């Protein structure tokens, strides 16, 4: 055994160890429960089912994009372009409907294909040209931030858009498309939340319960070993980036369907928030690795925090502060409590 990794030998877990383990694995859940109880107590409107659905709806986009980021983290990469992909997807969806006059059934596939294409280009840079992932996806981010504005010469896209050639765009948002962001199942569960749950469940099964999932993590953990075992790691990595691009585009579709227009945005806050969700996910269940379930719970956690604080009328700047402080707290619990063990 290597001298460094070996573990204390033979000790039966002591009582404090059990407590520590519960704290470590459950830190995020415990904090989440405390938050929900605290908020409901001070502001009864918080626990209202509609409000809880609002929270889920608010986090759905970040959670969906975050699961994509999680998959790229699993293969040992990092996709910094997701925010920009989502922002561009909003523009692309608006352009498709308002300028090109497409309907919802045409727009959605086109936009998702756009996300897949961006993922393919990322993968080409990373897998074929062997550009470091951060570098490749950062360049892609800048590229998209500019690209999304070129078709309309920097204008936002809304009904009656004046095109660069002076004519007026004749299309409008397809009401079917708006349903994606604005309708609810049984008048209660927003469609966006359903999409989030579907994505979460599918990706959870994919990453944790399938061969492909193991190979994703294996590629991230030791690419050479995975390749020597016969896996086509280039294809696995490409898959991850394409998936991440498609999910980011899906996030963009939901945003577009909610806001009903295409506004210029850098996607920086979507990027930060979805990365934050993925990273908090490390702490969920004490797994200390990227995982889909953790990401979704991480997103919900932040959503609950922000919704509750807004209800309690906390100014936005204290919200960032508290978000940071709670993050640090969850981390300290997850990582700090058992540092003696590692």
């Amino acid at each position, binding site marked *: *055994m*290597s*001298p*460094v*990794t*070996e*573990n204390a*030998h*033979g*000790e039966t877990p002591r009582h404090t160890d059990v407590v520590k383990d519960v704290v470590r694995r459950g830190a995020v859940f415990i904090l989440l429960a405390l938050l929900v109880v605290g908020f409901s107590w001070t502001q009864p409107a918080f626990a209202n089912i509609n409000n809880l659905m609002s929270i889920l709806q608010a986090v759905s986009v970040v959670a969906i994009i975050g699961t994509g980021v999680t998959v790229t983290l699993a293969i040992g990469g990092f996709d910094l372009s997701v925010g920009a992909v989502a922002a561009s997807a909003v523009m692309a969806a608006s352009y498709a409907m308002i300028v090109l006059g497409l309907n919802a059934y045409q727009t959605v596939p086109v936009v998702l294909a756009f996300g897949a294409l961006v993922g393919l280009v990322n993968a080409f840079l990373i897998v074929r040209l062997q550009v470091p992932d951060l570098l490749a996806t950062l360049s892609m981010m800048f590229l998209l931030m500019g690209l999304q504005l070129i078709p309309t010469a920097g204008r936002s896209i809304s009904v009656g858009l004046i095109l660069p050639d002076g004519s007026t765009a004749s299309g409008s948002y397809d009401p079917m498309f708006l349903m994606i962001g604005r309708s609810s199942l049984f008048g209660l569960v927003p469609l966006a939340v359903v999409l989030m749950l579907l994505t979460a469940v599918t990706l959870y*099964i994919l990453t944790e*319960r*399938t*061969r*492909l*999932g*193991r*190979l994703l*993590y*294996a590629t*991230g*953990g*030791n690419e*050479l*070993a*995975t*390749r*020597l*075992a*016969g*896996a*086509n790691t280039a294809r696995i990595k490409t898959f991850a980036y394409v998936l991440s691009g498609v999910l980011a585009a899906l996030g963009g579709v939901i945003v577009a369907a909610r806001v009903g227009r295409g506004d210029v945005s850098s996607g920086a806050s979507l990027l930060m928030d979805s990365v934050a969700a993925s990273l908090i996910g490390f702490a969920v269940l004490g797994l200390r*690795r990227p995982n889909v379930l953790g990401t979704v719970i991480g997103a919900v956690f932040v959503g609950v925090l922000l919704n509750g604080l807004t209800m309690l009328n906390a100014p936005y700047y204290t919200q960032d502060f508290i978000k940071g402080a709670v993050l640090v707290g969850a981390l300290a619990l997850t990582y700090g409590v058992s540092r003696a063990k590692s």
Partner: protein
Amino acid sequence: MSLLVAEHVSHAFGSTKALTDSHLSVEAGEVVALMGANGAGKSTLVKILSGVIRPDAGRVTLNGKPYAPESPADAATRGVVTVHQSTDVVGIPGLTVADALLLQHYVEKRSPFFLSRASVRRQARRVLDEAGFHLPLDRDFAELGAADRQMVAIARALSNKAELLILDEPTASLSMQEASRLYDIVRGLKARGIAVLYISHRTADLAALADRVVILRGGRNVGAFSRPVDFDAAIETMIGRPLSAARPKKRERFGRPVIELRGARLFPDSAPFDLVVREGEVVAVTGVLGAGKSRLLSSLFGLKRLADGEVLLDGKPYAPKNPEEAIAAGVVLAGEDRHRSSLIPAGWPGETIAATISLPHLPRWYPSGFMFSGRERREGNLAINRLGIKALDALASVWSLSGGNQQKVVIARWEAEPSRALLLDEPFQGVDVGARQDIIAAIRAHADRATLIATSDSEEAHEVADRVIEIDHHSLIDKAHGGENGQQEESI
């Protein structure tokens, strides 16, 4: 018809010609040993046959059909399965041992797409049982030591339907026990008509298994021997000079005690033991896998705490809290598994031979803090000459060296400056016979320090040490008064 025939195979890494016009043939049901000094090109040939790299020139046929595997997966589907030399490329830190055992199953399109914890355990258990090894299935692969990793690699390879099994130094960190289990397995495969290409620096392995020996030197074929193999002649052919017959002279008298352990316990429930290592003395500790060799050394190096007992260094109490303190006190350790414990990755500052050697000595060599004087390069070149490291210059990357030469660089690091006590964990992993002599000579040249070596190979232990002690269940069985002179079997 031969199973595999390789002809005129050449391969160069940049300006280094690793293989030149080499050839090899293997019959079904035959165990062919590939011998060669460090850097002879053995692993390069293995990598070509297993689809990791493409040869620059040459032709390979398998069952008479052209064979040019595109990838390791391609090679495996055509029945060529490989256990590579580096144990780093076996499993995945963060995934379990079971996953490491099943990695190839995950790649196969035919195996079920969905997994459950139970199905993974069941299949992994079956793979292990086939090889007859015992490993903790749920443990993180990162926690496994080099020997366990090697067993994972072997078990996994055996689970494949192979026509040709390639084993590149499979026993480098195994003890006699596990090694003999492997011999049985290989004989079983042979009996089933499976061909084995076997690479090892241990003559014991080759003597036990090889039907035929093929020898490479400098990337060229320089000889072949059939059963019964004259290993002395083979080794001479391999290193290109007669092996010096003179065994290093054992000292009779040693200086003051340097390291003294009194009533030491490695674990709370293990038996206490005493140990004294004196100035000028070389003591080797042997024992089976997991006996506690590494644990003993890491306790002396400040990586682990003894469960009980007292340590004296030069007569004064000594309880380092970390390697920094141990090194400051003059106790140094070269860890097993050099990739993890000693080397900086390729392409990163500090990957050169010189920098690998200088890393612990920077404060002494560059007291001003600025590294303008080029001292590390001078020291590196000295080490290259002293230990016979096969490199052009100390500023070359350690990653351009063969496994054995990398190990020499690691030893050279701790030879570069005087120390009170030198701790070496498996210092001869993957080192060829000639190089082993160089290293032993270097180790034994110092009369002013104590040396404690952990090795799972008792042959090596007797060759290098003045005194060999065995460790079992985390406690020493002192055979100091046994006849280490008489006990020296024929070792190379």
